[in-house]
């Protein structure tokens, strides 16, 4: 079955109906409205080093992602892909180096929550959804809104928000499982639900860790369509092993090896690179 193209309107960001009253505990300092992308780069990683008990996971990593770009990251196991995502989302602090979201937000100084609120969304390698909640409730929680304690105590879904969730449900083809408990979904469905949760979160930058693992071919194809359509409005960074999938979506590919960038360029360029061939096939 071919994927239906996604209507433009669905991907339009919906503005926070409650305004940007982010005064709750640990709320973000800045909303994405003010994100400064003057130079066209949304993410800047420079000279990042991370080591775990002597093991160097990242060494002098430099990476730039442009606004609206769809970047694929490939690399053998242990190349540092997930660690890099951990650094961007604030889960791991680099030993040194700088990480900027836009021109002004220093990711190394922000907490995970602040980073998430400032507009970076992440999908985990293993699909993680809230298993005890229904599909709808999963999306409701993820939806961009005021996420402070007090707000959630009083929160009521507006019609607009409900519509938005319904739209996304349709996009990820889970409209039939709306009230189903997320824990009961299949692996692929969970993957989609998690992507859907990213969509309602409406981030500027999406980090996706192996999004098509465990999907059927048709689902993979559909996902590729989805990502490509997202790319214009959002920046995406996709870590993937499936070269077919990478080839179908990426205009730009980065190869990581032993914690730093080995090669960068179009998929064809990269695949022709001697060093990359050696890394993948050599040993």
């Amino acid at each position, binding site marked *: 079955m071919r994927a239906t193209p996604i209507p433009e309107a669905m991907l339009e960001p919906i503005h926070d109906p409650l305004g940007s009253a982010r005064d*709750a*505990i*640990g*709320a*973000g300092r800045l909303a994405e409205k003010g994100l400064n992308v003057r130079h066209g780069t949304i993410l800047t990683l420079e000279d990042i080093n991370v080591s775990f008990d002597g093991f160097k996971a990242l060494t002098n990593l430099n990476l730039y992602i442009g606004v609206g770009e769809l970047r694929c990251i490939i690399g053998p196991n242990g190349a540092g892909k997930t660690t890099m995502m951990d650094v961007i*989302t604030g*889960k791991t602090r680099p030993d040194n180096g700088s990480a900027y979201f836009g021109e002004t937000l220093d990711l190394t100084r922000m*907490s*995970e*929550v602040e980073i*998430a*609120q400032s507009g970076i*969304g*992440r999908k*985990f390698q293993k699909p*993680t*959804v*809230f*298993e*005890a*909640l229904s599909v709808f*409730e*999963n999306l*409701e*929680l*993820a939806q*961009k809104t005021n*996420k*402070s*304690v007090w707000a*959630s*105590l*009083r*929160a009521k879904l507006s019609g607009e928000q409900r519509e938005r969730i319904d739209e996304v449900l349709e996009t990820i083809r889970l409209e039939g499982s709306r009230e189903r*408990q997320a*824990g009961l979904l299949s692996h692929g469905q969970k993957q989609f639900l998690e992507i859907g*949760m990213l969509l309602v*979160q409406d981030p500027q930058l999406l980090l996706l860790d192996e999004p098509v693992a465990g999907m059927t071919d048709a689902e993979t194809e559909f996902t590729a369509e989805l990502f490509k359509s997202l790319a214009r409005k959002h920046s995406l960074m996709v870590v993937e092993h499936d070269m077919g999938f990478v080839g179908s979506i990426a205009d730009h590919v980065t190869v990581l090896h032993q914690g730093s960038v080995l090669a960068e360029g179009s998929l064809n360029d990269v695949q022709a690179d001697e060093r990359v061939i050696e890394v993948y096939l050599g040993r």
Partner: protein
Amino acid sequence: MTMPLNQTLLARTSAKLGPRLSIAVGAVVLALLIALPLLHLTPADSAFHVNAYTLTLVGKILCYAIVALALDLVWGYAGLLSLGHGLFFALGGYAMGMYLMRQSAGDGLPAFMSFLAWKELPWYWVGTDHFIWALCLVVLAPGLLALVFGFFAFRSRIKGVYFSIMTQALTFAGMLLFFRNETGFGGNNGFTDFKRILGFDITAPATRAALFLATVILLVASLLLGWKLARSKFGRVLTALRDAENRLMFCGYDPRGYKLFIWVLSAVLCGLAGALYVPQVGIINPSEMSPTNSIEAAVWVALGGRGTLIGPLLGAGVVNGMKSWFTVAFPEYWLFALGALFILITLYLPHGIIGLLKRGEKQ
């Protein structure tokens, strides 16, 4: 790591089933609980008379039920197993006890201080002769302690078993502190021999009835509050927090605030339960803080069914009922029964009695 609790919340269940029946049954229980203290006021030789023994026993169990509910809010919903709720319960009890001691002592010092030759009240006793301030303390003492402990614990992401062990150590430390005579709370003897509350004789039937009613009101209020919370988005965030905290953080929620809120709320509920418990049973002493008591409360919740609102109440009732019976019938075997209960619930009844009833329903 996480065990999905496929338990549908009572809130949701009752929303779906025709609410009339559940309201009817609830009303019957409530009516019984309200009738009980009124029957206590009948003359002693009346056929319907309910004696003070029964009233205080049921009152005590109701207080425990509130504790179970409070524990369930943090454990069943937010996934934080506290083994230190006895501390909050006791703190509330002590705050109320301070007021009761002052009432008994009149203008002088409470008895335990005067025979240890203390000349004046320690600073933290200031104002405890006013009921209003005592009430504030009932809320503030457990609340502030929970706030401070929770702030540090949640900030450094202590969770799961570590959290349980830390809370256990906390209540243990509290117990040691209150056992000291120099701490100024009567040491091992704690507070006893209360005479009056708000000027009323504490042993008068009307006072007992009023205290009992207050407990019923607090229980109903806690249930309503729990129900409201479970239905709100807040409740869903807590459930999400329990199952996948990292996911929640990457959705932009700060778990600390949520945990702190429910943790403090739960502590305050415990404190209030403690405050009602003390005048009814007539004594508060540090053994209420012993880790064993707190862990027993966890069994009430586990037995009844965590993540539900009625479950903990059932659990508290069943375990305490069993305890009353066992300690009379076979005092030696009570610990065997309690121990076996712990093991069997965890092995075979992960959803407690409520889960059992549900399963029976499905088949």
